[in-house]
């Protein structure tokens, strides 16, 4: 069964009035800022249910942590797999649970394949620097090319990792899949990153939506293809407002914080100079360091606040446009919920020195379950297994360029 034969997965008219104009996807009214009166297709509303227990999460997390330390982090591939298996198995839709079928071994293998290339890459640059008789101009050129290569490979890795996860996700005995070339998408993403830079990030909403559309439109559940023609129009204004607030807030923090730090440092250094005491000098240094740390946290918080509206706008746009196997989506997410999730998780992980990670994961799962609404019902008999490419090894490239927690 080829992906192209999935047309019959269009929502059936009985459940979705909007499906009368089958393709292109039903028109969506331009969303009103801050409102949620987007034309929603009718149908029963359900959602994902996460019924994991925090205690059970710790039962997986603590042995994982111990083994990861004992094996000098090599165990992390098996640790990630155990965690995913649990999270997937405690998430259900329409009463049917998900299953994660990846293994630690294949993820480790992916890492083994990529690592020598990565090492060659890193040490190659060092060797070029010390060993070759080339001019500084050429070296700078090589470094710029190297930076771009890292960008490029990170994007390639993100795409490949999504494919890996989709092919390892099973629901009702049918797995996900993803078509398209990670290498080609990485090229596009790198070009878009350049474009974003040239336009002082003004192009960011457009590039982000284009890239996200690509990833969604190549994703499958069985032979049912996801469809989402995302537009940047609805998110553009929230991005600009967010960016202006973030930049202004950052400058304000740096300005005010800088003045306070400078004044404190001067006062303290005067005292320490007159008394000549080492302790006072130390106190001055420590207080300056603490002040910088606080400024850093303040700026991070400003960014979360400023861009949470943008996050919500993206989520709403995706929910409004995405369709998969007769399902439509909606989201009740609000900027407040986004802020509480990010800020809460950061504080929990930081103040427990990482031991609170399961709490953060638990909160994230609940956040996702509570903020994704599914409209309609999957007609199971219409979705069949599709022989989409199933990579044999997992996430090696992502591990090398973008090591994440999950």
């Amino acid at each position, binding site marked *: 069964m080829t992906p192209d034969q999935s047309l019959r997965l269009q929502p059936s008219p009985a459940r979705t009035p909007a499906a009368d104009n089958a393709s292109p996807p039903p028109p969506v009214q331009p969303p009103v800022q801050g409102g949620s009166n987007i034309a929603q297709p009718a149908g029963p509303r359900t959602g994902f249910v996460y019924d994991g227990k925090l205690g059970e999460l710790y039962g997986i997390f603590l042995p994982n942590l111990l*083994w990861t330390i004992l094996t*000098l982090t090599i165990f992390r591939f098996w640790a990630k797999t155990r965690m995913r298996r649990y999270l997937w*198995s405690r998430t259900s839709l329409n*009463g049917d*649970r998900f299953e994660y079928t990846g293994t630690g071994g294949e993820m480790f293998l992916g890492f083994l394949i990529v690592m020598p290339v*990565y090492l060659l890459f890193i040490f190659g640059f060092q060797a070029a620097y010390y060993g070759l*008789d080339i001019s500084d101009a050429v070296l700078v050129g090589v470094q710029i090319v190297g930076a771009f290569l890292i960008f490029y490979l990170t994007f390639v890795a993100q795409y490949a990792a999504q494919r890996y996860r989709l092919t390892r996700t099973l629901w009702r005995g*049918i797995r996900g899949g993803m078509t398209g070339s990670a290498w080609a998408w990485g090229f596009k993403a790198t070009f878009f990153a350049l474009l974003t830079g040239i336009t002082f990030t003004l192009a960011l909403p457009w590039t982000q939506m284009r890239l996200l559309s690509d990833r969604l439109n190549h994703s499958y559940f*069985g032979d049912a293809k996801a469809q989402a023609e995302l537009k940047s129009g609805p998110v553009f204004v929230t991005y600009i407002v967010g960016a202006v607030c973030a930049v202004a807030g950052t400058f304000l923090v740096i300005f005010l914080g800088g003045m306070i730090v400078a004044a404190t440092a001067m006062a303290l250094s005067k005292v320490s100079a007159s008394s000549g005491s080492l302790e006072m000098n130390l106190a001055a240094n420590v207080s300056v360091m603490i002040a910088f740390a606080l400024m850093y946290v303040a700026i991070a918080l400003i960014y979360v606040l400023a861009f949470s509206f943008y996050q919500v706008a993206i989520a709403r746009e995706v929910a409004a446009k995405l369709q998969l*196997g007769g399902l439509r989506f909606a989201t009740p997410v609000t900027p407040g919920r986004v802020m509480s999730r990010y800020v809460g998780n950061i504080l929990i992980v930081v103040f427990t020195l990482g031991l609170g990670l399961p709490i953060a994961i638990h909160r994230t799962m609940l956040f996702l379950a509570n903020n994704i609404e599914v409209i309609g019902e999957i007609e199971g008999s219409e979705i069949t297994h599709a022989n989409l490419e199933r990579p044999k090894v997992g996430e090696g490239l992502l591990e090398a360029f973008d090591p994440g927690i999950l």
Partner: protein
Amino acid sequence: MAEDRYYDGKTATAHRPLIRIEGEELVIASAEVAELDRWPFADIRVIDQNKVTGGMNFGRLSDPAPRLLLHDSPARQALLAAQPQLATWKAREAKRGFVVGATWTIVGLAIGAIAFFGWRHGAAALTQFVPKSWEKRVGEKVHKAVIEGFTLCKGEDGTTALRTLTDKLLPDGLEISLDVIDVKFPNALAIPGDHVVVTSGLIEMATSPDMVSGVLAHEIAHLELRHPTQGIISNLGVAATVSIILGGSGAGDLAYLAAILSYSREMETEADYRGIELLREAGLKSDGLAEFFKVLAEGEEEKGGGMLPDWLSTHPGLPDRAKYAATDGAGKPAMSDAEWQALRRICRKT
């Protein structure tokens, strides 16, 4: 949610299965269909079990997709009774996790041991294969990076005195460049490509020219034995290992930085002995280094430690070193009094 489920792996249909057992086979039916599928007992595996609902998720060994979710029932009990190994899946999985963890712990320890004991010897052998021309090229850049930003001391008489001393010490076939930089901290470095850099602080702290000649002989011995190159190779190996284990976390880069210009204990001891030989061959007093260590050790005690230069703190303990470097006071002084005074003024601009 605690309902049984059967998914055939072909379509995304959720069946409510009715299970019966016929001989050594599990027959899956539903209210509408008399027989959906037939699973031989020997082909059945357990995927997992939900602790809260008690539901056991079964799959087939011969086909990755179909799934059968069964809660406690006479049919499931019959299956587990017929295939007792299915009930112990949890223990098997725990064992597999333990084996993976234990294996990699042992592999990690072995890699660590090899890196610690074996690799340094391997590096010494590998060094022989590195061409001198490569060493020169690398050295030029390191040398430039080391002296960049410092004032070079070029007092004429002092430079001549130092050069005369160096020429006496140099073994056949070795030529080196020697720079004195205006830095208070007492230090001396041997850099790949046969460069030695000495700080003015070292000359000031020395109470006799023999101490300077001792340090100089030690650094020349490092170069003769090609220790800088050996150090880079051996530390690069360690850095590579760290990178392999930790992945792209930047730890490899840090290790790389630390790799340049640091020596192992063995290399230091070797250089101590060879340095003394060089002094003897030149007919000079060879206890200067030992005396210098004493001066440094006293200084260390006064300051309560912690202010030692790198090249000393990674070295064998100072008192130990003073002991075996203390050979005899025989031989000529390193330079004349006039030369020594000139050397002490090497950083003055007159």
